[in-house]
């Protein structure tokens, strides 16, 4: 087999509760800014999307109308990534650009659902009731705004990314695997250039209900992720993050400037019935990643839910020299988007020659004075799936 090709991150698109674009995020992180809304879904806490003018990346109103919020967020972030990579509108490249999207589904029409449920509970529903209400009340194109693979579909329609298109599903793990497969395809020559990422709308009551079933939502009071020992939970966040990853030779041939190198992505599915399984899994992934320096930097997608966050902490306490940053504190939990978010912030930090400051009263996150050359991105899903990536500076 030929040696694996080097893969560069040449485009980053990010929109979140902290704003849009790289400069806005760099400034917000350095100012340790956190944007939470404790009122709108009280007692639940969410990190709402910062005001965004979708027209800037999705010029046709008709396209915007065909999408649910998560698709608009993702299509917007994908456009930012293409701009950042300098390939926006380049039909030749876009026509052969591969795409791997990690996706959940779109929001339900809660007014329709609630009307149906209320009628059922009052007992005025015959056998045809559900059928008739759904037939009459569902917006015909709502399905397309909910379908998982239609984020990729919308990115193809709006931006013209039309090589291959795959949508991975499965919460946090979906995007870790998306990054892994994107990298493996580039390293092996199966792809020259790939758009990879995810989007999440955290301002959704139907998601709060889903996560409330197992008591995962953060309630009443916001605390940084590492300070939720006695008050565990995640605060859903809205964010869209896409990366353009390409082989070094492809990037050099078109004169593209890299932010960082994506050197490795490793994933696991720990059987979590055993206490300590996640800690063990992360330790094994750390070894597989190529044993990064113990005094390096690590960006964690820690959720703040238990027991997984404590298991992550146990892993981190075995690597005390690492400067850790938790994206969950600043951005909330963005499910499929959390891992691409970590990759984006790692690449951004490496390209700026500094790690952004800690945002953590517990002291787990420490200052990092020196210029980082390697950043590990870590993800452990709220219920399953673990992974790590190694992102390195290009000198």
């Amino acid at each position: 087999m030929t040696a694996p090709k080097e893969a560069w991150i040449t485009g980053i698109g990010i929109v979140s509760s902290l704003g849009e674009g790289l400069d806005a995020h760099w400034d917000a992180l350095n100012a340790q800014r956190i944007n939470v809304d404790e009122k709108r879904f009280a007692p639940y806490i969410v990190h709402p999307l910062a005001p965004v003018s979708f027209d800037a990346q999705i010029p046709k109103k008709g396209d915007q109308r065909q999408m649910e919020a998560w698709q608009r967020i993702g299509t917007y972030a994908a456009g930012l990534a293409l701009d950042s990579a300098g390939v926006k509108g380049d039909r030749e490249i876009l026509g052969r650009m591969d795409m791997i999207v990690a996706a959940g589904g779109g929001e339900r029409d809660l007014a329709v659902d609630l009307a149906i449920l209320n009628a059922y509970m009052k007992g005025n529903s015959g056998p045809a009731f559900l059928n008739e209400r759904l037939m009459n009340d569902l917006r015909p194109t709502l399905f397309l705004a909910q379908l998982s693979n239609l984020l990729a579909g919308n990115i193809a329609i709006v931006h013209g990314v039309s090589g291959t298109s795959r949508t991975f599903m499965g919460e946090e793990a979906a995007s870790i695997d998306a990054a892994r497969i994107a990298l493996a395809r580039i390293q092996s020559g199966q792809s020259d250039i790939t758009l990879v990422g995810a989007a999440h709308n955290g301002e959704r009551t139907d998601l709060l209900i889903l996560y409330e079933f197992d008591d995962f939502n953060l309630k009443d009071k916001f605390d940084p992720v590492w300070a939720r020992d006695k008050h565990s939970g995640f605060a859903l966040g809205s964010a869209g993050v896409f990366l353009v990853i390409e082989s070094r030779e492809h990037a050099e041939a078109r004169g593209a400037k890299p932010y960082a190198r994506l050197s490795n992505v490793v994933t696991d599915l720990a059987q979590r019935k055993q206490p300590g399984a996640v800690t063990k899994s992360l330790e094994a992934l750390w070894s597989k990643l190529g044993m990064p320096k113990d005094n390096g930097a690590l960006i964690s997608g820690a959720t703040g839910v238990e027991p997984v966050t404590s298991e992550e902490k146990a892993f981190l306490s075995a690597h005390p020299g690492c400067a850790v940053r938790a994206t969950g504190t600043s951005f909330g939990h963005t499910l499929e988007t959390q891992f691409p978010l970590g990759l984006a912030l790692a690449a951004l930090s490496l390209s700026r020659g500094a790690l952004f400051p800690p945002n953590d009263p517990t002291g787990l996150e420490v200052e990092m004075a020196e210029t980082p050359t390697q950043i590990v991105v870590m993800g452990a899903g709220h219920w399953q799936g673990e992974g790590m990536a190694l992102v390195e500076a290009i000198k």
Partner: protein
Amino acid sequence: MGVVTSLGAGKADNWKRLTAGESGIRTVTRFPIDGLKSTMAGTVDFVTVDPPSSTGLTERLADIVTEEALGQAGIGRTGDFPGPLFLAVAPVEVEWPQRLEVARAISKSDFDVNDVLAVSGGGKFTPYHRRFMFGSVAGHLAEKFGTKGSPISLSTACASGATAIQLGVEAIRRGETDAALCVATDGSVNPEALIRFSLLSALSTQNDPPQGASKPFSKNRDGFVMAEGAGALVLESYEAAVARGAKILGVVAGCGELTDSFHRTRSSPDGKPIIGCVHKTLADAGMTPEQVDHINAHGTATPENDKMEFLGISAVFGERAKEIPVSSNKSMIGHTISAAGAVEAIISLLTLEHQRIPPTINYDIPDPAIPFDVVPNVARDARVTAVMSNSFGFGGQNASLILTREPI
């Protein structure tokens, strides 16, 4: 290989019924059909799960086909499959029976969403979280069958089954693994799923008789028929399979994929993405169109798909498009959506094994605009060395496979 469709469980039963031209489509009895425009589907009624849910049935169907496939492959040990899992599965969400259970826990009348939220936590509905996670079916299969690494759940709409196979092929070609378990499953015939497709005017409304509804390539075709099913394939590198003395059922000679960026549900009118997809697949296999001697069509029986499939095939195959046998399994088993690409790849491999092509049934009024040889109504013995299996889906998803009996 393992397969379940509305015609039955297992390769033997399905092959017998497919080549007899039987239909698995019937009037839905799982839930009331009052008020629906389309009342038939290819439901798998001989498998039930408790408590009932589409995701639960989807998972059970995947179990059944995986057990059949692993039994035939004789690879690894029980609960210890030596490779990764690629699972094509429908998007997941909380379903109506569960939604109603939660509503029943609310004590007041005229409740709003905050009242729903207030009763959702506290442990009464804990299993619903796991059941309705997108990664739940893959997590279950990975644990049960001991696949290696993080399992991948994927959706490329109606092309999902083909994409699962494609991901397995790519992993083997990269040398990451000698074997991959590729599973595609769909048990999602429920009222809302049916209504969603109905509202997009995608479904046939020729309800009577239900067996006659799915009419691929016919002039009077009026949409697809929703169906359930699952398919599982154990893929191995050819060298590894030969080395362990495995019985090789066929070869995935080529895979291709090309996105259509024209519209959310319609193909580009010039057919270029389909043509490009077929060309990429041929190139991947290192084959010319002349070497393909049968096409297992996507053939959904929507007016749009069948027309575009002919346009794409005829652009690549030229005059041969009228001679090469092109049949649609969906005429008998309906459209198994997320599972279709894998179910139809398996039927393609059975076609190669038996040298017999299943028919396109319900072909009574040919569409003169689609002059395919559709193998009308009756199975046909034929020399078949290479089959192209096509899958095209919402969101511009196009994927094709070329399957052969022997390595090319």
